[in-house]
Every structure is written in structure tokens, then in C-alpha cells.
């Protein structure tokens, strides 16, 4: 395998096969299926191709890069998604204008290579000798994201296991905790990626890392919102508090600005002083805003009075806290009162001399124009939405969110720019359209991690039950299967995928069976791990096939002992017979056994196949003979033939083995046993036609003659001996 990688901005990752095609042991694609490659675009795809080329070099980084989706011809369509030809991507290094291409699918990747067939009338000639491996899911191969995959695996398994135990309130608390755990893993990953982006010197890598940071941060933002809306299901009043936390957590450029302001010698004279105050007010961080305002008051005696009044207003602003017993009506009443007070000051022109304070007062009153003026400070429409809710509708109900969200988006963007994928995802969440959220995320994000885990969590919240797909079983399972399949294509992460398949009741097992057979078994330890997984799940077919593969490998490497162990483990009688034959053949050629340590210790596994039994027993005969336990050896030898354990082809060898016993000084074979031996010899020779007898080499006939002689002599001796014994 070549080691060259092209790291691309696209979700592909390619690896070039440097050797010639003939040297490749992977299954070669059949040339019968020409690839629909970029050279001959589908009719509707002309524009798409240009787009794809453009996306090759992403220079600026939007909050969520919009071109990160895997092309949907790599995916089954999601519910509601129509099947259309998406944009095209060029595979670098492939020139499909010269030659026809062919391809073949693998579980997680695709092989592409040139065929011998030229396109059009071009002259024949050697083409590109490379096989391209086009991978479907690039993110699986990201070093930093591996931490995300590994850590979230533990959380996922924990969630599935704990499901039955809890009910009601504690159940919700547990689900929120799980959601927070997922988020903290995303955050940790993001921080690590950020560190990498800072520390690396390679500009291309840096760009890649920063893109990843953006994606991860967008993922966390979406997840957090989904947590508030779908998992926490915050009631009116509390909802706003969660949303405020959400905005504070994700708009964090402020903190550096504030630090700069506070660290300057004279904070109130700093150019960003009022910006900092505004940001605090916009985010509802009243205490901090008041703290800053006190600096202005102490530095500027003329505005002291105004500051005091504004400070008082901020202090008095009624806020619902999560633990309080205040009812919504009480809250609304207080709010009304406070609102009127603010209104009064504004009408009196109390702040007229200071435009900054006046605008803050307007913000407190929920004046949309005043808030919109601070667009730069809020940076996003959802910040605007939350600020607007804070000062005009503090007791907003979850169902009302959608109206405010839509109008906030429209107001904020003013029709100047169209909403980006992230905006539509958040909007869908505000609209309680879970399926829309999942669908949009699937399209916008380059991996299945996010949607798979989010959908699973929401499914545990019992939010997805009504929905059934027209394919597969349900959304949760569909997404988990896709994600786990991606993991399986990675040489280290495949083990994580197993647990995901386990929790897919409908198709998980089938997927696991198909994928596990494709795990390369390069060491025995890995084979044992795969085997353990199969055995735990009663996948007998796969256990057999893995053992067979390992046994075949061992045979090819001339490790018969190992091969036998594997076939015994698989209880594969046919293969055990095959290997036993090899052992016997080796014995016939060399006159001694190899791998005695194994054959001597077969134990009950000897009964797996007749041939193996024979091998074990035959070896036992040799051991008895070696230990000079002749009569036992003789008995065993005879038994091997009379009980038809020995294959006929081996009888001659056994009879020859009897020769030294027949020639011993003392009589070993009794008369009866000798008769049986003779019958065996006759059975053996009778089977052959006269033709064979005479055409057969002289050695064979000599052997038979010697045997007959020896048998006759032994019979005579035995009769004499037995007669004497009886007589005496």
C-alpha cells in the first residue's frame, strides 16, 4: 500500500496505490462498470462541477462551512430528501478523459482505477498504474476526533445500559447529564484542536484545524440548543434563563474585550468601554455591567447622577431564578412596574446628555431598533433573539419561540444575506422540528457522529417514536448504523462500532456480521479479539469463517500445529481431516512426527474427526512402542484396522509397523490376533485386481511376501506357545 495521502478540504481522503495493479491483492474492480466520473458529468451537473472545483480551496472560514457534506450519492436519502445529482468532485490524479474508469464498493471506501479501454479514438498505451482508494468518511481518520469517538462511545454505552432503571424526574435529570457529558467531550476536543491550530506552523494544517474548531463549536452550539429545547424542556420563564446561558457560553469574544478594558489605566476612557457595557447589558449580565458603570461614575463626576439612576434600574430589573417559588403572574406584574419606571426616565430625558446611557435605557425597554444598532456586538441573529426576548418577553413560552426566532432572523439579516446552514438548523430547533434539525445537520456536517448521537439521545427522550422511515427500521437505528459502519472502516476504531451495532435491534446483527468478516486479521491477537466478539454474540458462521481463515493461513505458513488448533476451535471436522492427512503424509515421508507436543495432548478434541482420532491413536501406538509396552501397542495397532479407524491407504504402513512386533523374541500377537492381521492383509490385497498386483512395483509385492512370512512364523510360534501354556 502506498503511503501517500492527499489531505483535501473535501470529505474525501485519498490514498494512492503506488504499485502496479497486478501486484495488488485487493479485489480488482471489474471493468464492466464504467464510473460516472467527472469527465462525463450527468446532464444536470455542469454547474455543479464548477462548484466542486471552487470548493477545493476554502480560504475563508464561515461559522459552519457549508460545503462539508459528503456527496449524497454516498448516502441513502434521508426522509423527505429527494434523490438528485449533487455537485461533483474530482478525484485528484484521475484523468477520466483518457481512459474509462472502473470502480468497486467496499464497506467504507471505494476503489477506482483506469481500465485498458481508451476513450474515443485516443491511442492505446499504458495508463495510470494506480488504484485510488476513495474514502467515504474522512473525519474517522482525524487524530483529534478519535478522542471524540472514543469518549462518546463510553457515554453512549452508559446511556443504553441505564435506560431501564430510572423513571420520571430522575430520568430527565439523567438525560440532561448525558447530554452535558456529550457536550463536554465536544468542548474538550475543540480545545485540543484549538491548541493544535495555534501550535502548528504549517499554514495548511492550521487552516484545517481552525475549520475543525469551527465545526466542533457549531456542533456544540446546536447540541446545547437542542438540549434546552428537547431534553430539558424548560417551562416559560426558565426557558429564557437557559437561552441566556446558551448565548453567554457561545459568544465569548467579549471576555477578552472586557479584560482589555479593565486592564487599561483608565477603563472609562478606553475606546471599547461602552461596547463592553453594552455587551453585558445585551447578554443580561447586569452585575458585571453595573461594575463597569461604577468606573465611569467614579471617573466622571458630571455623569455620576445619571450613572446612579441607570445602576438603580439595572439593579431593580426583575429576574426569575431557577429555584424561586415566584409565579409567572407575580413576575409579569413586577416586570410591568419596572418597565414603566424605565419608560418614565426615558421620557423625562434623564439620559439625554449621554447617548450611550440613553441607548442602554432604550435596550432595557426592549426597543428593537436600539438593540439592532448593536448588531456588531451581538454578531448573530440568535443573540439578537435572546436579547430581544430578555427585554420584551421575559416569560416567553416554548411554543412562542418560533415566531420570535423567525422575525429576529429577518430583522437581523435585513435580507442582505441569505441564511447559512447553521441558521436553518437553529431555526428548525426553535420551531421544534426535530426531524428537520437532524436532516439539516446530516447535510451540513461531514460526519455521522453528531446526528447519530443526538438522535439516539432524543430517542431516549421519547421524542422520535411517531416517525418511521420507509426504509430500514427507524431514524435512530439508521443513523447509528451509518456511523458505526464508518468506524468499522478504520483499522483501530472498529471495536467501538461493535457496541453501536449491538444497540440496533433490527439490523445491527446483520451489519455486524457483514462488517466483522471484513476486518483484516493480521495478527493472531486481533483474530482472537474478533473471535471473542463473535462468540459472545453466538455468530457461529463468523466464528467458523475466522477460524478457517486463520487455519488456512497457518497451513500456508507450514504451521500445521497452529492450523490444527484453529480447526479444533472451530470444530471444523473436514479441515481437521485435511490437516491430519498432512501430518500423516509428513510422517510417511520423514518417518517421524512433527509437532509432538500438540498431537500428544489432543485429549477429547481428538474425536473431532475420524482422521484426527487415527492420528492421535497412531501416535499413541508409537509412544507405547517407544516405551516397550509391546502387547498394548500390538493391541492398539490391530484395533486401528479392525475398527476401521485407519484409512485403507494407511493399512500397509500399519502392517509394516507390525513387522518388528512379529519378529520379537517373545510372542506378542496371539494366534487369534495373528489371524486378524492376516485377514487385514488379505482384505488389502484382495481389493486390488491382478493387473494392479503385477504391474505394481516390486517393493509392494516384496512387502506383502515378507509380511506373510512373518505372520506365518508368528502364528506358528503363537500356537506352540498357547498350546504349551494350556498343557502345563
Amino acid at each position: 500500500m502506498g503511503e501517500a495521502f492527499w489531505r483535501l478540504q473535501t470529505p474525501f481522503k485519498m490514498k494512492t496505490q503506488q504499485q502496479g495493479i497486478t501486484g495488488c491483492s485487493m479485489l480488482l474492480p471489474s471493468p464492466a462498470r464504467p464510473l460516472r466520473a467527472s469527465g462525463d458529468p450527468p446532464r444536470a451537473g455542469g454547474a455543479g462541477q464548477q462548484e466542486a472545483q471552487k470548493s477545493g480551496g476554502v480560504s475563508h472560514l464561515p461559522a459552519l462551512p457549508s460545503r462539508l457534506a459528503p456527496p449524497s450519492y454516498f448516502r441513502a436519502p434521508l426522509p423527505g430528501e429527494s434523490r438528485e445529482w449533487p455537485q461533483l468532485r474530482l478525484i485528484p490524479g484521475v484523468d477520466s478523459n483518457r481512459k474509462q474508469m472502473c470502480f468497486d464498493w467496499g464497506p467504507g471506501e471505494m476503489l477506482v482505477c483506469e481500465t485498458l479501454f481508451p476513450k474515443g479514438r485516443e491511442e492505446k498505451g499504458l495508463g495510470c498504474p494506480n488504484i485510488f482508494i476513495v474514502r467515504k468518511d474522512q473525519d474517522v481518520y482525524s487524530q483529534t476526533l478519535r478522542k471524540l469517538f472514543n469518549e462518546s462511545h463510553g457515554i453512549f454505552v452508559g446511556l443504553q445500559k441505564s435506560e431501564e432503571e430510572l423513571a420520571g424526574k430522575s430520568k430527565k435529570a439523567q438525560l440532561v447529564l448525558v447530554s452535558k457529558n456529550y457536550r463536554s467531550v465536544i468542548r474538550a476536543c475543540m480545545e485540543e484542536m484549538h491548541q493544535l491550530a495555534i501550535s502548528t506552523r504549517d499554514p495548511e494544517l492550521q487552516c484545517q484545524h481552525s475549520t475543525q474548531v469551527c465545526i466542533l463549536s457549531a456542533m456544540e452550539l446546536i447540541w446545547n440548543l437542542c438540549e434546552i429545547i428537547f431534553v430539558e424542556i424548560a417551562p416559560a420563564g426558565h426557558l429564557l434563563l437557559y437561552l441566556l446561558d446558551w448565548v453567554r457560553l457561545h459568544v465569548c469574544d467579549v471576555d477578552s474585550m472586557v479584560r482589555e478594558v479593565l486592564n487599561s489605566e483608565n477603563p472609562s476612557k478606553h475606546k471599547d468601554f461602552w461596547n463592553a457595557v453594552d455587551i453585558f447589558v445585551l447578554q443580561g449580565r447586569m452585575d458585571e455591567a453595573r461594575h463597569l458603570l461604577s468606573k465611569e461614575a467614579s471617573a466622571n463626576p458630571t455623569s455620576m447622577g445619571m450613572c446612579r439612576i441607570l445602576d438603580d434600574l439595572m439593579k431593580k430589573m426583575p429576574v426569575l431564578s431557577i429555584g424561586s417559588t415566584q409565579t409567572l403572574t407575580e413576575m409579569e406584574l413586577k416586570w410591568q412596574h419596572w418597565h414603566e419606571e424605565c419608560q418614565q426616565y426615558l421620557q423625562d430625558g434623564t439620559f439625554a446628555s449621554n447617548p450611550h446611557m440613553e441607548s442602554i435605557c432604550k435596550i432595557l425597554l426592549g426597543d428593537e431598533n436600539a438593540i439592532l444598532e448593536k448588531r456588531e456586538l451581538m454578531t448573530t441573529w440568535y443573540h439578537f433573539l435572546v436579547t430581544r426576548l430578555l427585554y420584551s418577553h421575559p416569560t416567553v413560552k416554548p411554543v412562542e419561540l418560533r415566531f420570535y426566532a423567525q422575525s429576529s432572523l429577518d430583522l437581523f439579516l435585513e435580507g442582505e444575506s441569505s441564511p447559512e446552514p447553521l441558521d436553518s438548523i437553529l431555526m428548525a430547533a426553535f420551531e421544534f422540528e426535530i426531524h428537520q434539525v437532524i436532516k439539516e445537520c446530516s447535510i451540513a456536517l461531514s460526519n455521522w457522529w453528531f446526528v447519530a448521537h443526538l438522535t439516539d439521545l432524543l430517542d431516549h427522550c421519547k421524542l422520535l417514536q411517531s416517525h418511521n422511515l420507509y426504509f430500514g427500521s427507524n431514524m435512530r437505528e439508521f443513523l447509528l448504523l451509518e456511523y458505526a459502519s464508518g468506524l468499522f472502516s478504520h483499522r483501530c476504531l472498529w471495536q467501538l462500532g461493535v457496541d453501536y451495532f449491538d444497540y440496533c435491534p433490527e439490523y445491527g446483527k446483520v451489519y455486524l456480521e457483514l462488517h466483522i468478516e471484513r476486518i483484516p486479521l493480521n495478527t493472531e491477537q486481533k483474530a482472537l479479539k474478533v473471535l471473542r466478539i463473535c462468540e459472545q454474540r453466538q455468530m457461529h458462521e463468523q466464528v467458523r469463517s475466522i477460524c478457517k481463515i486463520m487455519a488456512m493461513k497457518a497451513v500456508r505458513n507450514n504451521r500445521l500445529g497452529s492450523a490444527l488448533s484453529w480447526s479444533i476451535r472451530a470444530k471444523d471436522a473436514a479441515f481437521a481431516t485435511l490437516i491430519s492427512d498432512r501430518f500423516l503424509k509428513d510422517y510417511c515421508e520423514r518417518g517421524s512426527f512433527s509437532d509432538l507436543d500438540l498431537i500428544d495432548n489432543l485429549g477429547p478434541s481428538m474425536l473431532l474427526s475420524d482422521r484426527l482420532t487415527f492420528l492421535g491413536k497412531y501416535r499413541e501406538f508409537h509412544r507405547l512402542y517407544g516405551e516397550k509396552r509391546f502387547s498394548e501397542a500390538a493391541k492398539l495397532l490391530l484395533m486401528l484396522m479392525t475398527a476401521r479407524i485407519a484409512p485403507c491407504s494407511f493399512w500397509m504402513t500399519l502392517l509394516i509397523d507390525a513387522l518388528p512386533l512379529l519378529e520379537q523374541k517373545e510372542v506378542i500377537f496371539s494366534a487369534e490376533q495373528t489371524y486378524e492381521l492376516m485377514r487385514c492383509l488379505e482384505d488389502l490385497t484382495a481389493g486390488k485386481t491382478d493387473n494392479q498386483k503385477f504391474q505394481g512395483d516390486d517393493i509392494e509385492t516384496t512387502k506383502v511376501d515378507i509380511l506373510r512370512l512373518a505372520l506365518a512364523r508368528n502364528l506358528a510360534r503363537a500356537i506352540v506357545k498357547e498350546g504349551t501354556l494350556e498343557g502345563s
Partner: protein
Amino acid sequence: MTKISSSSVCGVALSSLELAAFGDENKISIWSVGDFGNVGTSGEYQGEPQLLCDIRHHGDVMDMQFFDQERIVVASSTGSVTIFRHHQNNQTLSINQRWERAHYHVDPDIPFCGGASCTGVICNNPEIVTVGEDGRINLFRADHKEAVRTIENADSSTLHAVTFLRTTEILTVNSIGQLKIWDFRQQRNEPSQIFSLTGDRIPLHCVDRHPNQQHIVATGGQDGMLSIWDVRQGSMPVSLLNAHEAEMWEVHFHPSNPDHLFTCSEDGSLWHWDTSTDVSEKPSFFHQGGRSITVLSHTANQSVISAWLNNNPTKDRMEITNLVPNQTLSVNSLDVLGPCLVCGTDSEAIYVNRHLFS
């Protein structure tokens, strides 16, 4: 316990200050886990383990051990054995010595076919012994270019692990459940003694020897069973202890505190076996869901010095703790030294415990 993220960790080794780890991303890393001498009595140690350096490695790493303070011996799935030197002054790793084809298969058709995985390595300065899937045993010396001694076809099945019994004798375990003693003083290429479990031929995956009483040997097998052997007598284990639910990948006596034993397994657990507690004072208990330890065979009837040969189920039980609960993926490797224990897992993390006995 501290956790380090890494790629899948297949093995760990400890030197006095450092921890070497490798994963199947084929990289060897040296981590500093801090100075053991300076760990306060309260037990806290400031700072995370630090990655000092790493180096790429050809093939999957199957086993590794510190040869001395600055050299590590690494066994590869390609059949090569490499000594890496860790330069402490500039924190780099370099190849010190490599035996390219230490383990290989002989194919009747192809004269030089692929290497066979080297499954185990053990060092006893200056000697290094390796075993592999090809059933070969190699004896190397750090300063010799060629193997000092090779026993071809030492085993007809795969050798899984090796350890020194005495300076000239080694112990190997194989995939048909045999424990063999080899004596390098003998010129015959045959084991001087073979021990085996009962007829079930359950593969053995790991072996370790008691640091002070060299006749006591512990092995772990595919069924998760821990066997304690007395190599002075009998060919059967002294005791069989039902332990893990899946393959036991590694077993280690604590080098200076041999009443403690550590085992790790494919089922994702890492167990601490403690025989030092005085059972008459403490009630015996087992920390994992009330599963009790069954001692299957028991032949220790002589006056024994070691607690390991004397675990009478009725009188004294050992205390067992699972050190990494909630781990679902395999714990592949562990090493223990002083108060420090490290283990590497398939969930791509290394766990470090610096206060074993506190």
C-alpha cells in the same frame, strides 16, 4: 487515576520515571509520569503525565519492555525486534538496534515469505528473549548483531508470552494451554519440562514469575482463569482461580510487594489481587457484584510460605478490587512498579495510577 488519550494502546512498560506506550497507530511514545519519590503523603501529584517524545514504528507493536534506563525493546507484528534508545538530554527516540527477521514463516513455495508476528519479549540485561507466532524462541544479546541462540520449531502452536525463570531458564506459554520450561544450558532444542492444564487445551496468554520465590508462577488464559503453578512439583497448577470473563491478556506480580498481583483482560477489567490482608480481622469480600472466587483445585497441603500457594477457599480469601470500573473495551496491557500502575486500553487511553497502596 489519570487518563492519557492516545491511539489504541496495546502495551505499556514502566521504567522508574517513564512510561512507554504504543498503540496500533504504530507509534512509540515516552511519557513522563513524574517522580515517584516526591509524591506527598496526602497522595496528590501535581501535573498531568507529559509526552516526552515519540517515534514511528513499522508494524503493529505486540509487546515491549524497558531494557535499561534508556533503552526499550519492542516486538513487532512484522517479526522484527527493535531496541529504541531514548536520549534524555534532547528528548528524542532513535533506533539503537534491529533484528529484522527475528520471526518468520517458512513457506515451502516462497523462500523468503512474510514475517511472523513476534508476540512476546523479555529482557534480562544483557539478554533478550523473544517468542512468536512461528513457534520460534530467539535469544539475543544487545551488543550482538545475530541471535545468540535460536530454537526452531520450539512449539507447534503459537507462543504467546515468555518470562525468565532463572538467568538461564525461561518459561513460555502457548495456544494449547501448555507452560514450558526451557534451559539454555542444554543444547537439545526441547523443553526441560512441560506443564499443562487439564485436557481442555485452553490457550494461555500471559505468564509471570514470583519475584522472590521463583518456583511460583502465575499464568492467565483465554477463559480468564488465573492459574498458580509450583514448578518444583507436579505438572498441574496448584490452584485455578475463576477470574475474568474473557481473555486475560497480562498478569504481573508486584515486583517489590509480591503479595499483590495484577491482571487485565479483554472484558475491560483490571484486577488487583491482594493476599496481604489478615483475613481473621477483615471479612473477606469481593468488590464486583458479589461474584465469589471459586478455587477449583487445591493441592497445597505442605507447609507453605507463600500466600499464593495457600489459598484455601474456606480459610482465607484474597481481596480483589477492579481498578478500572465502567471500562467496556479491552485492557490490553499493564505494568506495575513501586506505587505506580499503568494500563493501556482499546478505548485509546492509558490509565496511570500513582498511588496503588494509599
